[in-house]
């Protein structure tokens, strides 16, 4: 009898122990009063703002957005991280910030901390982008030996692709097709230009030129961060960009930013060009400001002479700072906001989704005719800016010389040679090599 009771007690205890462990594992800590999230001020948060009431209704936790202009957001985040402050529970970060945030160890790893499981409905590039150290390409000195973790997941699936006037030309696949199309329709007297360039100095011209540069087979760095920019492929790419493409572009593109480019397309003055999703929803497919609604087709960035397509990725990522005191709930929010269930209302609310099932959904493509091109671009896979915290300096150097070549101040050879020399000098000073 005694033995029987003892056995029963052991079984009951075992069951209790297992159950309590399971409850603890799946359970959530008490609800915080709110989650504070640092976000960039602008269109990137439109979709997020649209889904927040849903989250608050379902989960009963308020999310407070603290908005900063682009450069201020980076400074605020860095300051908060350095102090390990609990100011923010969540943040959205531009993907070129990942090298800095990842190498400094400022973010909570989502896989090892919460057991995040990868989802086939999400393009692999999304996981690559949020991982540190990066799974491909050169890795900054001292980072390669660190264990790789997933620190962030895309919220804004920004990727650069190509637009064309489908009522005038056919979808271009290569840069040769783009030139043929441009030749066919270019008529400055009308005016209708074959190609529009976002050529302003710095980030604008680099976002535009990088897909051309990489499609020509050129690279800025090799796997050891040695500058390989000074190559025939790079000079050919810049010559094509600043001579051939420019000859079909509106005058003055060396000072064009996104607003000018979108205006040229929306007023029917430009037949082809690169485009980012936000410019489409806000301007070129917006019937209240655009004269070309329904006349535009979208496709993958054209391939260069070797057949390589090189769309550029520019995602905004959701992550949790180590200083957050509500990490578990912040993770719940990430899971919820990036779930298949929420991505559709997110897209309908003006957000830029990133899930295959949403981007390839036939109904969604009727409303958002560029989703298929986005899916193709994310599957390509798109190129990312070299994973180094020195990227902003590299972009500033290259952006000055490419802009100078576009304005005719420097020849393509001069621009590439000078940029390569200055980038190498900078990387040396930054301690990448002697």
């Amino acid at each position, binding site marked *: 009898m005694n033995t029987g009771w003892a056995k029963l007690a052991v079984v009951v205890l075992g069951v209790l122990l297992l159950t309590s462990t399971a409850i603890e594992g799946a359970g959530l800590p008490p609800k915080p009063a709110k989650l504070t999230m640092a976000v960039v001020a602008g269109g990137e948060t439109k979709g997020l703002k649209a889904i927040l009431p849903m989250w608050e209704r379902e989960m009963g936790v308020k999310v407070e957005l603290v908005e900063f202009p682009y*450069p201020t957001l980076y400074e605020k985040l860095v300051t908060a991280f350095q102090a390990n402050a609990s100011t923010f529970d969540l943040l959205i970060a531009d993907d070129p910030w990942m090298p800095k945030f990842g190498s400094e160890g400022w973010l909570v790893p989502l896989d090892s901390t919460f057991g995040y499981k990868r989802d086939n409905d999400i393009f692999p590039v999304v996981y690559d982008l949020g991982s540190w150290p990066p799974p491909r390409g050169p890795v900054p000195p001292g980072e390669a030996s660190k264990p790789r973790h997933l620190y962030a997941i895309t919220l804004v699936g920004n990727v650069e692709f190509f637009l064309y006037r489908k009522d005038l030309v056919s979808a271009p696949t290569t840069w040769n097709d783009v030139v043929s199309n441009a030749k066919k329709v270019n008529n400055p007297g009308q*005016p209708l230009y074959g190609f529009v360039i976002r050529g*302003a*100095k*710095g980030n604008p011209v680099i976002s535009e030129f990088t897909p051309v540069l990489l499609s020509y087979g050129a690279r800025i760095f090799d796997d050891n961060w040695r500058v390989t920019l000074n190559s025939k492929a790079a000079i050919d790419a810049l010559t094509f960009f600043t001579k051939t493409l420019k000859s079909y572009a*509106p*005058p*003055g*593109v*060396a*000072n064009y930013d996104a607003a*000018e480019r979108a*205006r*040229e397309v929306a007023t029917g*003055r430009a037949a082809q060009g690169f485009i980012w999703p936000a410019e489409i929803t806000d301007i070129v497919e917006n019937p209240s400001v655009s004269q070309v609604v329904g006349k535009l087709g979208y496709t993958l960035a054209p391939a260069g002479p070797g057949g390589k397509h090189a769309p550029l990725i520019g995602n905004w990522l959701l992550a949790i700072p180590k200083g957050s005191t509500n990490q578990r709930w912040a993770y719940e929010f990430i899971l919820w906001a990036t779930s298949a269930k929420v991505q559709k209302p997110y897209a309908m609310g003006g957000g830029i989704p990133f899930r295959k099932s949403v981007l390839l959904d036939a109904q969604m493509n009727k409303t958002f005719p560029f989703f298929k091109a986005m899916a193709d671009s994310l599957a390509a896979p798109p190129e990312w800016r070299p994973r180094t*915290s020195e990227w*902003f*300096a590299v*972009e*500033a150097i290259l952006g*000055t*010389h490419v*802009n*100078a070549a*576009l*304005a*005719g*101040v*420097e020849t393509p050879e001069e621009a590439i040679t000078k940029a390569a020399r*200055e980038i190498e000098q*900078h990387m040396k*000073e*930054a*301690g990448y090599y002697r």
Partner: protein
Amino acid sequence: MRHWTPYLLVAPPVVLLASLVVYPLLYNVSLSLRNYRTGEFVGLHNFARALDDPQFFASLWATAIYVSGTLVVEILLGLALALLVHRTIRSGWARTLVYLLFLIPMVTPPVAAGVIARLIYSPTYGVLNVLLQRVGMIHTDVLWLAQPFTAMLAVISVDVWQWMPFVFLVCFAGLQAVPVDTAEAARVDGADGWRLFRHIEYPYLRSLLLLVMVFRFTDTFRVFDHVQVLTGGGPGATTEFLSLYLYLIAFKFFNLSYAAALSLFVLFVTSAAFSVLTRYLGREAGE
């Protein structure tokens, strides 16, 4: 206690000054003498680096063109307008109206001025090209912001629009000090407009013009906002003035030590200009 009273009274401003001006300045000096990554002391290395930096000299040259262009145009135009209004407009309300109109550019935020100018100078829909084409001065669009020379003119023009009124207001105020009977006597004696200015009005304006020159020099030497909006320093680096280059070094290259060294150079130049003027003005007052 009475012994301490003066010290206690000056303590608040001294503490404020020390924390807001002296400490940041000393910190900046310390930063300029260190390696920005390791923090190790490198002496004058960051200053020596500037001497070997072609982009620094290019930005200095661009700044020199900008400063001299804006100074000359603003002072000549501001002075000419002040003389014109002083000599031709007598009515009080008309003068008040002129004052008010001239205040508008000065209270416009430089970034807004840059955005407006960007629209005006746009090659495809900018109003400037349209107007010039209508009056037959040009036949094709001028690419104001995409060519080095015209981009420089464009950024200078915004500064002139915004700050020439300051020169005007100071000169106009100075002209009010000219005794009416002295000017009348000169006219009766047959002095023409130039002689009236040279011998009667200019002596009252000389110190003010010097003061204006230093204010405008220090301001234009540090210009940033509207240039960043209008050209971003382009095309290439042709309008990348010292302040824009400094911003690039500090916030794109994150080389805070070199940026600190360059900012001390800017401080040195503007302080030198100020000290030259105060000595000159002091000598004038002594005369």
